[in-house]
């Protein structure tokens, strides 16, 4: 995966993609703003959400053990997974034990993060996504571009073509006369999926929340496909990030208010499913819960960065981000795109190891719009700057990069007023000389600036010399 600036360049060149993104994020942004404005105590809710998450994260070990005990008491089988490979192995083992070659899935960020579909495919097990947008992405052999609206980068005509082309190979084919009318597209998806729900014996889900008190897992969704997956099959495996735990039902109440308004711009999500272990004679009779770390304890150990673990995956930050709006999700090289991805990926993976991860904290103008809308008050700009300093520190020693030379040079000049005055004068002389010579190509970083922007003319003399000669006396 290329570093962000290169990946972004590709997306910026795709006018259709940018139009789709601008339209979709603009629409959802307006919806969110309207429903958030209805809630008088929104700020208090945000503070409560952040406080509950923070308190839980500081005693995460205790809450997880309580969750495990409660789950086991209700007949669920609990597995602990340190990383993606361990988590995928658990799911594959359950599928093998039941002799199935396919599973149905509720949309789940955790299973995308660990590459579960690909891992199962390698074992000869097909994993069918049942969320409409995930289905579009899966059938299009594509990657999700948004946390909540994975197919945000696709328009209706593109979706019609994907359904017509790919549904047949995956199950019930699309009707021959399929149009790009939304109702017709939804109907085709409904029929295609219904066949899979009724056939599958094993389902895989994630969870939006896990209540430690009672061992209850919670999924919120809009389409009802999740409810189908959670109730129809004989066996259910839920892969849950360890940061999803909330201690009590009264804590859950806060998040069930914050999440739908922030994510879909709805007052309430259409479906809220909760399940607690096994209920004899009702729903799956074998329930597995995989508690997933995969870098979360690494993020937890970072005092500034740990606030990212408050994230409830609402994607409000994506929808207001000027960078995401132009580049889309793929440029971030992860299932977590946008501002939250720019901090979460480096926190989960660690910085200083690959150029792609190290480029993510810089994929932001630090405009602060993400912090403003975050329902759990993650100060994303603060964490971005913190992670940038970690990236810089990881590359100290060895041959300095041009940027480091420039920054150290700047700091050297700014450390002493006389040096700065000298550099400023020299720069001004050089700038005017270059201007008179009509030089067109300047070295980096001026080259990166002047490709599409004019530089301001270099003034005859800087402010400082005016002040010294006239300003201070007038």
């Amino acid at each position, binding site marked *: 995966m290329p570093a962000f600036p290169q990946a972004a360049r590709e997306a910026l060149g795709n006018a259709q993609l940018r139009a789709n993104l601008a339209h979709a994020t603009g629409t959802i942004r307006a919806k969110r703003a309207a429903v958030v404005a209805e809630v008088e105590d929104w700020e208090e809710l945000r503070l409560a959400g952040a406080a509950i998450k923070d308190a839980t994260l500081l005693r995460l070990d205790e809450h997880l053990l309580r969750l495990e005990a409660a789950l086991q008491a209700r007949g669920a089988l609990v597995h602990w997974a340190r990383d993606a490979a361990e988590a995928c192995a658990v799911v594959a083992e359950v599928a093998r034990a039941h002799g199935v070659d396919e599973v149905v899935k509720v949309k789940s960020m955790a299973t995308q993060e660990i590459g579960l579909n690909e891992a199962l495919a390698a074992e000869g097990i097909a994993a069918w996504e049942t969320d409409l947008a995930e289905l579009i992405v899966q059938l299009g052999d594509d990657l999700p571009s948004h946390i909540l609206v994975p197919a945000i980068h696709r328009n209706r005509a593109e979706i019609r073509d994907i359904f017509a082309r790919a549904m047949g190979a995956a199950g019930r084919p699309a009707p021959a006369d399929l149009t790009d009318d939304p109702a017709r597209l939804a109907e085709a998806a409904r029929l295609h999926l219904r066949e899979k729900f009724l056939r599958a014996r094993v389902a895989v889900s994630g969870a939006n929340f896990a209540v430690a008190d009672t061992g209850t897992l919670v999924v919120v969704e809009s389409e009802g496909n999740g409810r189908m997956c959670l109730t129809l099959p004989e066996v259910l495996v839920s892969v849950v990030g360890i940061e999803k735990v909330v201690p009590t039902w009264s804590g859950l109440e806060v998040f069930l208010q914050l999440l739908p308004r922030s994510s879909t711009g709805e007052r309430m999500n259409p479906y809220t499913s909760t399940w607690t272990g096994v209920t004899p004679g009702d729903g799956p009779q074998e329930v597995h819960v995989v508690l997933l770390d995969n870098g979360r304890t690494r993020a937890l150990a970072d005092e500034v960065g740990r606030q990212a673990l408050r994230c409830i995956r609402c994607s409000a930050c994506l929808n207001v981000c000027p960078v995401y709006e132009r580049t889309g999700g793929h440029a971030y090289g992860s299932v977590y795109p946008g501002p939250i991805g720019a901090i979460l990926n480096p926190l989960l993976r660690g910085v200083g190891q690959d150029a792609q991860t190290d480029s993510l904290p810089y994929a932001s103008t630090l405009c602060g719009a993400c912090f403003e809308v975050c329902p759990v008050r993650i100060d994303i700009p603060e964490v971005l700057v913190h992670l940038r300093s970690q990236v810089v520190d990881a590359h100290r020693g060895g041959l300095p990069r041009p940027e480091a030379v420039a920054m150290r040079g700047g700091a050297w000049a*700014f450390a002493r007023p006389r040096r700065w005055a000298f550099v400023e004068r020299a720069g001004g002389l050089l700038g005017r000389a270059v201007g008179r010579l009509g030089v067109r190509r300047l070295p980096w970083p001026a080259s990166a600036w002047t490709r599409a922007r004019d530089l*301001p003319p270099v003034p005859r003399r800087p402010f400082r010399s005016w002040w010294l000669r006239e300003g201070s006396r007038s």
Partner: protein
Amino acid sequence: MVTCLGDALFPDVGRATVSLLRRLGVGVEVPTGQTCCAQPMVNTGYLEEAVPVVRTFVEAFAGYDAVVAPSGSCAGSVRHQHALVARRAGDPALAEAVARTAPRVHELSEFLTDVLGVEDVGATFAHRVTYHPTCHSLRLLDVGDRPTRLLRAVRGLELLELPHAQECCGFGGTFAVKNADTSVVIGQDKARHVLDTGAEVLVASDSSCLMHVGGILSRQRAGVRVMHLAEVLAATGSP
């Protein structure tokens, strides 16, 4: 406080700030010991390099009643980042100096409205103007409608509403060169919104954002001038 960018490239902004404040009866000093607020280093992740720059800043501004900056971004940097840099330096004396200086730093529109208590600064500027509220003024400092209140009181000035005003212009400090392509595309959208207003002049409180959007407008030969808020408020109508 004259920002490093203002000092080197936009001296008229500093001169306008000085003349505006003097017109309002404020005794103005520009300490020559100042250089930069260290924001370029901090925001790019060079915290260690920022330490001596912050030290120079607090030394230069020790002992003044108020520090006025014609930049929301730089004022925000002082108020929100200097403490972080002092912590990184592990220097309690520096942390204390920062804690003394930072609260006395005001962005220009804050100083005029909150400290001096004026909205009509006696300016005359007979042009069609639109205002971009710059992200750091808006979100880091929460200056709200102070700048537009000041502009509305300017004689002859017609203030036109900028569509999507609260969206970033795409400058973002070193983002403008590290992610130059994305920066330009965001800026081109901002420039389009400016042109949609029919304004002759785009005004903002940060020279950096103006340099970026102005650079794009200039490349497009759009015929729209960019000016800093201080320049408009200092204008008296006689050329």
